[in-house]
């Protein structure tokens, strides 16, 4: 018999002192408490709703909406269903988010790099921009653009013509709209060919550099393939594109692409506000890269452009991307402030008008929140995956 078998096992503690049982007890208490709480809330809600004559269920989604929407990316009129209002609102939110994210990224990166410029004046101006617009509430900025600035534009009859058929007045910004004609598909095909060619070219250039050491101007050729080549084909095929110019008919413009002032004010404010935060994120990312990296690279003879591309930016992006995606999410959530100026985003159209008309607060709120939550959780998981993948390998 081995010593191990005859050795005494430590005696079991009393149940109430055993950490395992205590843990179990506390957790059970938590679950019971939560369940009770949720149960009473649901109970109250159902009885309250019954008392007020509010129906439940999702049947309302198929009912006729009976109201118009200021701007819609898909067909919508008063006969459309409430379900369709959800889609319109969702797409409008998406539109604002995409435009906002794109523009804010450009502005933010530009300002962030400018803040680090060796040019004192440029750096100071960037700082002023960042410190001013970060510290003023977004809603106030939206109001400013919408009520103070855009409301001062002339009426359509006195519209400001900005050249190339662009009209700017109190009803919105009107851009000439392209109307592809029958031969346009050739240009589209040319673009696709250019894109595929670019992918092959990049691989070939990389291989060539490995084998012969010679460098190829990949950047310029990419530009040529994606823009120059399709444009060339466009010209050759006789420019098969009509332009619909906005034309003053009656009291307003019609034709072309109309950007309503609500959309302009919202995107402008979101871009400028979020851009300031992105600028700080970019600045922090670039500063996070040790100056010694720059010194070592320069000492090895790398040019400034190579230093940026090969050493600084890869390391800076690691630090920039997580808070950057956080800013993108903030921008998307902040787009809900559209309600304040009447832009028909998801919250305004669905959680606002539709909720008012149907009274079905629970279902509508749940659907709206589900949209934002899904977006948040998706982006968060993507970011966690990215972080794990890009983590610096250490001991």
């Amino acid at each position: 018999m081995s010593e191990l078998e005859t050795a005494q096992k430590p005696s079991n503690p009393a149940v109430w002192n055993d950490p395992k049982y205590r843990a179990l007890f506390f957790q059970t208490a938590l679950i019971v408490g939560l369940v009770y709480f949720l149960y009473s809330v649901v109970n109250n809600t159902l009885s309250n709703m019954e008392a007020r004559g509010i129906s439940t269920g999702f049947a309302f989604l198929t009912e006729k909406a009976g109201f118009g929407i200021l701007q819609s990316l898909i067909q919508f009129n008063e006969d459309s269903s409430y379900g369709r209002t959800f889609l319109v609102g969702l797409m409008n939110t998406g539109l604002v988010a995409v435009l906002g994210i794109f523009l804010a990224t450009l502005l933010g990166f530009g300002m962030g790099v400018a803040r680090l410029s060796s040019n004192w004046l440029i750096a100071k101006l960037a700082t002023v921009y960042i410190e001013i617009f970060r510290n003023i509430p977004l809603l106030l900025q939206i109001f400013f653009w919408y009520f103070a600035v855009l409301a001062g534009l002339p009426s359509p009859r006195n519209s400001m013509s900005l050249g190339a058929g662009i009209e700017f007045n109190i009803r919105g910004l009107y851009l000439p709209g392209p109307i592809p004609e029958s031969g346009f598909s050739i240009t589209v095909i040319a673009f696709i060919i250019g894109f595929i060619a670019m992918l092959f070219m990049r691989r070939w250039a990389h291989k060539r550099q490995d084998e012969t050491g010679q460098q190829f101007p990949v950047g310029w050729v990419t530009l040529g393939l994606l823009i120059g080549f399709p444009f060339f084909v466009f010209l050759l095929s006789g420019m098969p594109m009509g332009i619909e110019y906005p034309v003053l008919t009656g009291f307003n413009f019609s034709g072309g692409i109309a950007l309503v002032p609500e959309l302009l004010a919202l995107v402008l404010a979101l871009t400028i506000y979020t851009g300031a935060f992105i600028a700080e994120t970019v600045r922090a990312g670039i500063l996070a890269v040790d100056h010694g990296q720059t010194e070592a690279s320069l000492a090895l003879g790398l040019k400034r452009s190579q230093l940026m591309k090969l050493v600084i930016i890869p390391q800076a992006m690691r630090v920039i991307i997580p808070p950057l995606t956080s800013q993108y999410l903030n921008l998307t959530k902040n787009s809900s402030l559209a309600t304040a100026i009447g832009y028909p985003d998801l919250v305004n159209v669905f959680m606002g008008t539709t909720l008012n008309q149907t009274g079905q607060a629970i279902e509508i709120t749940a659907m709206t929140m589900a949209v934002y939550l899904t977006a948040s959780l998706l982006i968060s998981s993507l970011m966690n995956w990215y972080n794990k993948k890009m983590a610096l390998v250490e001991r």
Partner: protein
Amino acid sequence: MSAEHVIELNGVHKWYGEFHVLKDINLTVEKGERIVICGPSGSGKSTAIRCINHLEEHQRGQIIVDGTELTGDLKHIEQVRKEVGMVFQHFNLFPHLSIIENLTLAPIWVKKVTKAEAEETAMKYLERVKIPEQAFKYPGQLSGGQQQRVAIARSLCMNPKVMLFDEPTSALDPEMISEVLDVMIELAEDGMTMICVTHEMGFAKKVANRVIFMDQGEIVEENEPNEFFNNPQNERTQMFLSQIIQH
């Protein structure tokens, strides 16, 4: 402008704003010479060697490296940096690249050699610094001494004519200092021209042709090691030497 001098500093002055950090530095280095520069912190010794590859810019005087004068001209600067290698106190390896990628980056992008050639050179120098098995690891996985040896190999891959060392062992734990010094001694014995800013006096005694003492921006004393350590002439030199713990 003799082509025999690999490095020539004539009447070099530098200011940081109002502060006169380098005062009338005159120095010539022949091929194959090993120079050690020592001095108290703030004496300008790091600044001086950083001027040689234009990491710092001098305001007065001439700096000529292998026949090329260092002015503001980008072409000259690039030419000089190809011929001069530098090893830093804090290694400055690229953490997002593997060891072998660290070594092949500059040859591929600056000297435009093929990938195969660059990797061959890299492995050769990794063997020279005695850590070829670390080629595919990342800097974060290596010890300080190993990282510094990789840094030396990285500079060597560019086949420089001169190697500059800026306090290469000051950031290392004591037990790793000798592995780096051994590599530097071998390099010296193979005929590499080097200028080394260091406190390691044992290394200076073993390897240096000349020891230079700098203080408050000037070259105070310059002599061959024996004379320098046993017979310091200037009292500032004497004071400095008495404060250094000999290895």
